[in-house]
């Protein structure tokens, strides 16, 4: 069994199109939530909410005409984020194409390509553009990245709604840890903010008409977003061999299904997934001759990047799961949700939040919960509010990042500073 580390990161987010820019915004308290700008610049008067969190200044000048013709916004995010991660780690110079995996999460791809065509069909009985097929494949972004990076190893897309990115990173972690491959690009990409999609979410009555305020007593819903986050994972041995910058180590990955309801979460599911993650982290320690077990890991968790969507139900259920696992320690674990900065980019969120957790461990600074001045008194958590909080100056810092998806699909990752 191999130790697995993060040596490259790439992102496109509403508050920065590189990890450095993203981090600066998190540190300086800049949120990306703002009035939504539709593709046609024509605001939808029927939406009860006005805000989303969009990626701005998307620079496609480095993409080839073929890449632009055969993709849409969602896949273009993937290509650009993957390039950043691969370049930072020197991925393709140090790992054979066949020994590198690409595992990407994507909850919904191709909406910007498909939706205008559907409108034309029903409005004008028009023909449909042939490239709308490849452009709208859920796996389009994955294939685009494989072609762009000439990576020929295992490659597949995972679609588990809002946990897609965490499932992708966790699966890639297991593949590298087991020795199946020596490295992987893993993360997620999402660009779902089309007119029909926004109206459908409006009808779901879970989108905040004001501002995403995770864990606040008066929270009134999520803010929809878009974005991508992709990481380079590789073995510790290969990273050390070339003295690569290591942002964090991944220790464990746990997942579960609530088996309960298609939209309503239940605490049993994330509780089981957090426990599974800690057990998996203990497996890593045991197999790589490091001290520690599930109990000691549970006691050492020093930061949780929460799913924290700011719906009444999610935040209460997530807090209950944390309380169930950590017991008397739960109110003392620093926790934040970064969705007040970034909104909720569905599958993309869990990858971006894993990237943020790795950055937090690397900088030893814990991001705060933008939009929430104080934690809901009914939720006994040590919510980081107001400004970033310094983490321990020395020694390893252990963190979890939680993802709780619609349909009761839970994915938890455990990271450690390096």
């Amino acid at each position, binding site marked *: 069994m191999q130790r697995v580390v993060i040596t490259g990161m790439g992102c496109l987010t509403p508050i920065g199109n590189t990890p450095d820019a993203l981090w600066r915004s998190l540190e300086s308290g800049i949120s990306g939530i703002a009035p939504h700008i539709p593709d046609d610049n024509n605001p939808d008067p029927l939406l009860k909410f006005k805000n989303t969190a969009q990626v701005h200044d998307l620079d496609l000048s480095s993409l*080839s*005409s*073929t890449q*632009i*013709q*055969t993709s849409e916004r969602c896949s273009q995010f993937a290509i650009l984020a993957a390039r950043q991660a691969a370049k930072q780690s020197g991925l393709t110079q140090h790992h054979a194409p066949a020994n590198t995996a690409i595992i990407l999460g994507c909850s919904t791809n191709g909406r910007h390509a498909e939706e205008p065509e559907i409108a034309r069909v029903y409005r004008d009985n028009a*023909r449909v*553009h*042939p*490239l709308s097929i*490849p452009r709208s494949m859920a796996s389009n972004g994955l294939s685009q990245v494989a072609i762009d990076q000439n990576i020929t190893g295992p490659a597949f897309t995972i679609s588990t709604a809002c946990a897609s990115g965490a499932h992708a990173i966790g699966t890639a972690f297991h593949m590298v840890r087991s020795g199946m491959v020596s490295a992987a690009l893993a993360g997620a990409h999402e660009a779902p903010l089309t007119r029909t999609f926004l109206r459908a979410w409006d009808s779901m009555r879970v989108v905040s008409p004001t501002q995403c305020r995770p864990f606040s007593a008066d929270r009134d819903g999520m803010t929809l977003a878009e974005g991508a986050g992709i990481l380079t994972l590789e073995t510790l041995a290969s990273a050390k061999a070339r003295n690569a910058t290591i942002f964090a180590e991944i220790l464990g990955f746990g997942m579960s299904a609530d088996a309960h309801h298609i939209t309503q979460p239940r605490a049993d599911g994330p509780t089981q997934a957090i426990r599974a993650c800690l057990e998996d982290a203990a497996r890593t320690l045991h197999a790589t001759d490091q001290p520690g077990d599930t109990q000691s890991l549970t006691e050492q968790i020093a930061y949780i990047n929460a799913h924290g969507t700011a719906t009444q139900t999610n935040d209460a259920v997530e807090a209950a799961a944390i309380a169930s696992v950590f017991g008397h320690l739960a109110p003392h674990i620093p926790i934040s949700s970064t969705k007040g900065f970034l909104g909720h980019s569905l599958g993309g969120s869990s990858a971006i939040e894993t990237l943020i957790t790795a950055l937090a461990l690397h900088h030893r600074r814990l991001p705060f919960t933008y939009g929430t001045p104080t934690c809901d008194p009914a939720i006994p958590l040590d919510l980081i509010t107001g400004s970033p909080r310094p983490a321990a100056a020395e020694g390893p810092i252990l963190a979890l990042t939680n993802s709780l998806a619609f349909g009761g699909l839970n994915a938890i990752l455990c990271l450690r500073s390096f």
Partner: protein
Amino acid sequence: MSDTPATAESITNTIIGFIAAQKTLDPNIITPASTFDELQMDSLDKINLSFEVEERFKISIPDNALDSLRTVGDVVAGVQRIQSENS
């Protein structure tokens, strides 16, 4: 859009415009003699071009005609032939 068959020159210019936009090329380097190989147009590019041409000129290009298209001029001639048959 007029029902009057377009001239060879206007068809050529239209098709060159499609290809230039599709492949991000300078239209001045594309001529009727330009081959799809030279323009690095693969089968998907040809399907894309066919769709644009069909929509613009309100014609239907038979599936089996695509394989025989080698140059920009072939497409222009094909459009003219179909327009002539339809008129």
